[in-house]
């Protein structure tokens, strides 16, 4: 069955969410991935939203992280500190983030493009909850299209911590040990992190994508996993559920670049 790049990323992201775990998501593709996971391999996944929604039965895709869908028939409707503190306490397994730039250590920029903080070329929204979630959740996943403007040697601004400058840097900065970047799911490949160097390491390449494409679309040197595989495509079942139940109005899955 044919699929577009957003559909592919959502299906791959969903597979990375273990059942009986807790995830904090934003709106859009990450939320679609969490919803798809609930309807496939992780029926008991608990979804939290940073504004306070906990374990809703999502009737449709939320538009805002704080809209009423995020706590529709929820287990609890709390507060932002409640969610952030649940993360800080060590109860939250996953989060999904995005950003305008990402470097090889998984550091993210969503603050500004340019070199002068006081006169940014482009002002972006800032951390929002991203810095908090990447600091506090056990495993941070990123879903993003892959191109040299996004995958950069050095972020113009490190809004949100990945592995910072490499091994030991998170712990040295005071961030909770054992937390950190986990996967980057792009339109070209699935990336993990090399344990020794904390650098991005390609784990599987999507069907019909070449290594050269990855190199060209990445502004830093990628590491390659020894047993590099071809990403297994979305199943018909995954695509059917995604299209029919998760995003019937195609708000998210129509946005493929």
């Amino acid at each position: 069955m044919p699929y577009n790049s957003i559909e592919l990323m959502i299906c791959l992201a969903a597979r990375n969410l273990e059942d009986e775990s807790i995830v904090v998501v934003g709106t859009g593709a990450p939320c679609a991935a969490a919803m798809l996971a609930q309807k496939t391999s992780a029926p008991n996944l608990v979804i939290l939203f940073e504004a306070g929604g906990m374990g809703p039965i999502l009737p449709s895709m939320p538009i805002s992280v704080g809209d009423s869908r995020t706590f529709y028939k929820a287990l609890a409707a709390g507060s932002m500190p409640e969610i952030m503190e649940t993360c800080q306490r060590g109860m939250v397994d996953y989060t999904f983030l995005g950003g305008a730039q990402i470097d090889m250590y998984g550091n993210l920029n969503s603050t500004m493009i340019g070199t002068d903080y006081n006169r940014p070329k482009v002002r972006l929204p800032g951390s929002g909850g991203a810095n908090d979630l990447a600091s506090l959740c056990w495993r941070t996943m990123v879903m993003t299209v892959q191109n040299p403007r996004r995958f950069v040697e050095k972020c113009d601004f490190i809004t949100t911590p990945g592995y910072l400058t490499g091994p030991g840097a998170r712990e040295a900065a005071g961030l909770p040990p054992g937390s950190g970047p986990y996967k980057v799911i792009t339109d070209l490949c699935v990336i993990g992190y090399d344990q020794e160097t904390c650098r991005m390491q390609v784990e599987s390449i999507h069907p019909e994508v070449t290594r050269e494409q990855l190199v060209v679309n990445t502004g830093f040197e990628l590491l390659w996993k020894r047993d590099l595989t071809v990403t297994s495509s979305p199943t018909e079942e995954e695509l059917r559920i995604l299209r029919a139940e998760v995003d019937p109005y195609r708000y998210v899955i129509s946005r493929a670049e």
Partner: protein
Amino acid sequence: MQQAEETEKGRLFMDPDADKAREFFRHKTRQMRDKVITVQKAVQELIHDGDYIAVGGFGTNRIPAAVLHEIVRQRKKNLGLSGHTATHDMQILAAGDCVDRCDVAYVVGLEARGLSKVARRAYETGKIKAVEWSNGALAWRYKAAAMGIPFLPARVMLGTDTAKYSAMKEIPCPYTGIKLAALPALYPDVGIIHVHRADVYGNSQIDGIIVSDQDMARAAKRLIITAERLIPHEEIRRQPDRTVIPFYCVDAVIEVPYGSYPGNMAYEYFSDEEHLREWLDAEKTEAAHQEFMDKYIYKTKDFNEYLELSGGLKKMPRLRRLELLINGESSG
């Protein structure tokens, strides 16, 4: 290095001194009097040029839109803003050129809807001085103030440029030795919160998520409450565990039905995505934006006129059906 970083650090717009705040709160009235006034008077009397304000809700959800409009209408200037998920609220205030400094956690964006060109320009030109934080950090800064302590430790921002361009300091934990972020208490001059129900004294109830409003209400030196509806005082006393904000935090109460429009109000009405799109589109040219602002804010007398212009009582039932998932309406 430490020194070098210091010079890049942003400044603390508000004093985190808990003793000074205590002195203020010592003299804040505890009188349980009728605090109902108009939006116009509340903004006139409680918000002054130069004040630092904090807005409740979450950007396009449960926002005190009527007060935000009135701030623009009265052309308040040089406000400080807590940019705690400031989306449509930031957009309104930027359109009115009301803000000159901001503790940023999330600004200029409207989540999945896109970015506000007008708000961005205000930052890109340096018109608004920014200091960086995160949503969690600002939430905890309110909480520290609400708790009456000058800072709260947390494990965020550490190691990033967000910290470098914030005014945050690091401290070691006296028990475990780990490095912690010390988040300074944030006592806004004025808090503005839209709630589901309040009595005339300001005792307020919120349904669904509270975001950070339980803390911000207590942290703010002055507090304006707008409510979907006023309820009898006895109703408050019938279910005291529903009171999120007690009267002694509150300085003004205004009944504003549809007061979060075009934002979402849980259990009441969904956001008006058409109107939000119209607003974003109007930002494409300065002329269009001026026209838009004239039409909806500067040339309207009050929020009710704005509601009429944007669909009025004809549109509201549709947003209500969307919110209540009636007739299979979807949220798009």
